[in-house]
């Protein structure tokens, strides 16, 4: 029950899930992104018949395999956590997520058992055409296998196509197509896959730059860079466009998240997009402190354009979303909490009436519940200010992601420019930056998940289920123990990956 709720447990469970998801997300985008780049390398080899391209393809394929092998099954841990730490949530969403995630598991199994094997073992053993087909299928299949988990995540942020059944305490699927093709899900998928390709391109550039700096495998490095940078530019442009579309979706369905990652406390017209700023850590939604400390830089009008596709539109701030803004016809968390409490109370009354066998009373309370059910989650908030996510973390994560995302296409362009002029090997400054560019890409990729997941707090399911109710009633100590076990396991696996990867990179393609 709420009054006995151990907030410490919830935070440890959130931390554990974040640790697992972020660790898993080190491997996944590289698998998704590098698979496309491999397919292009392999295609060039098949089309040219040049053995150097084959050597190059096999080298990157080996690094792809290492990343895949270390990362495989790390996502399963999240499913363990659902059942143990988030039992209420698991039960409530089982009808929505069960089938899609099972499809994904079966699909991934058959994909991995067939095309992965053909891709890795198929050299000189299957026809060139079929081998190339297998490499492309690995790329297509890997990226498609990310569909359902992203659809599930999108649904939690924008829960469409469902209805809550108070009899079973479950959200039940009403419209599969609405869930699978919600604009939020489409944007999430395209953004995740295009940014993964960008990350894959940075991985190739990092290692190839290191080779060029050391004067090793120069031809392989240059050829790898040209293809990766070209794909990287396309991926960057696409990522910017679908990122902008994602921001627009967020503004429509999760305005609090947008306000948090822009540090917008009070709504305004002609709002500017923050380019740089230091968030005031003391600022609260109910006070009049300055939102930023010292210097901050805004691009005028752009926030309105991003949020509403209109320069002079009103963009609500956190204060409007907490206390409401009648002028703008905006309900705040205060008003939503009032309706949410009616939903919770009706649900309880329905439950009691059903127990007592009073069908007429149960029907009355069910009608009342249905009237307020879209605000159900707000009924569990203790204070309206609880609807505000951690602002500083959301703000910095968003701006780091966008800042780096803006830098990467310039890096790719610089690489292509100097490669075209034939002076790339002389540009030590660029190659030095290129070596660390993959790490920066990882930072941007992780920051993206922080924006998505921290920005939607306190909700497990937007507006319907806060994390404090989604959890299992466990002791803090139980979750702490497994948190540290995962930390140790993940650290060991990461050390294993890095050491195997570094060894193979230092050996280079000769031994392949």
């Amino acid at each position, binding site marked *: *029950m*709420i*009054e006995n709720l151990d907030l410490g447990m919830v935070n440890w469970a959130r931390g554990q899930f974040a640790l697992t998801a972020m660790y898993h997300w080190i491997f996944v985008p590289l698998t998704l992104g590098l698979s496309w780049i491999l397919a292009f390398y392999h295609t060039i080899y098949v089309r040219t018949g040049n*053995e150097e391209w084959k050597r190059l393809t096999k080298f990157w394929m*080996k690094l792809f*395999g*290492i990343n895949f*092998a*270390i990362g*495989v*099954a790390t996502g*399963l*841990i999240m499913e*363990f956590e659902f*059942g*143990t730490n988030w*039992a*209420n949530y*698991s*039960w*409530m969403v089982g009808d929505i997520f069960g089938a899609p995630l099972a499809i994904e598991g079966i699909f991934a199994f058959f994909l991995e058992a067939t095309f992965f*094997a*053909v891709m*890795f*073992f*198929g050299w*000189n*053993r*299957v*026809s*060139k055409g*079929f*081998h190339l087909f297998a490499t492309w299928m690995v790329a297509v299949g890997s990226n498609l296998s990310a569909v359902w988990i992203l659809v599930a995540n999108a649904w939690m942020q924008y829960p469409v196509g469902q209805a809550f059944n108070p*009899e*079973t*305490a*479950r959200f039940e699927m009403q419209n599969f197509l609405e869930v699978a093709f919600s604009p939020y899900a489409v944007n999430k998928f395209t953004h995740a896959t295009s940014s993964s390709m960008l990350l894959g391109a940075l991985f190739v550039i990092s290692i190839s730059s290191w080779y060029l700096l050391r004067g090793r495998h120069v031809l392989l490095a240059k050829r790898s860079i040209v293809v990766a940078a070209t794909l990287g530019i396309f991926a960057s442009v696409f990522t910017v466009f679908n990122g902008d579309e994602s921001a627009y979706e967020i503004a429509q369905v999760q305005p609090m998240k947008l306000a948090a990652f822009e540090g917008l406390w009070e709504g305004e017209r002609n709002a500017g997009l923050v380019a740089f700023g230091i968030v005031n850590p003391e600022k609260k939604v109910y006070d009049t402190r300055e939102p930023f400390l010292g210097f901050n830089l805004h691009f005028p009008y752009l926030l309105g354009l991003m949020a509403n596709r209109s320069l002079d539109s009103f963009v609500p701030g956190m204060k409007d979303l907490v206390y409401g803004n009648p002028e703008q016809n905006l309900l705040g968390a205060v008003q939503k909490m009032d309706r949410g*409490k*009616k939903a*919770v*109370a*009706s*649900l*309880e*009354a329905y*439950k009691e009436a059903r127990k007592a066998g009073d069908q007429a009373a149960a029907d009355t*309370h069910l009608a*009342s519940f249905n009237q307020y059910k879209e605000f159900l989650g707000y009924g569990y908030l203790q204070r309206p200010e609880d609807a505000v996510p951690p602002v500083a973390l959301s703000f910095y994560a968003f701006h780091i992601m966008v800042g780096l995302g803006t830098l990467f296409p310039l890096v790719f362009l610089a690489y292509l420019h100097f490669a075209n002029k034939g002076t790339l090997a002389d540009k030590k400054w660029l190659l030095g930056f290129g070596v660390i560019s993959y790490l920066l890409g990882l930072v941007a990729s992780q920051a993206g998940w922080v924006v998505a997941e921290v920005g939607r707090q306190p909700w497990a399911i937007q507006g319907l289920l806060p994390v404090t*109710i989604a959890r*299992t*009633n466990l002791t803090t100590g139980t979750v702490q*123990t*497994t948190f540290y*076990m995962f930390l140790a*396991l993940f650290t060991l*696996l990461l050390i*294993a990956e890095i050491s*195997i990867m570094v060894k*193979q990179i230092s050996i280079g393609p000769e*031994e392949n």
Partner: protein
Amino acid sequence: MRRPPVVPLRARPRACAPTVPVGSGSLRAGAHAPDSRRPLMNSRMDDPKARRAALPVRIYRFYRDGFRQMTVGRTLWKIIFIKLFVLFAVLKFFFFPDFLATEFTDDRQRADYVLEQLTPSTQGSRNLAQGE
């Protein structure tokens, strides 16, 4: 299309065995190795029925030889198996029981439990439900 007569496997002379080198495990004879321009295919492989019959064997060899020729892959498989063992035999078994599956015997009980969690029993909420 006329099919050639089927020759039982036992009746086939040894010379009709595929000429694919031992350990190559090719799924398709005459694969794309630059040193294998000559199709590694014999009369038996030309026989569609014989090829169908040999497919499971060739798939088996393909996997077997692929695994045998792995270098880094062997280390990776060891890591995968250790990881799966730790995940399923240790973590899942001892530390991550499915709470609702272990605590309750049927879905009705699970639904009732979750419903209890969703409906904190307070007088205030009762009053609200009664419209007071």
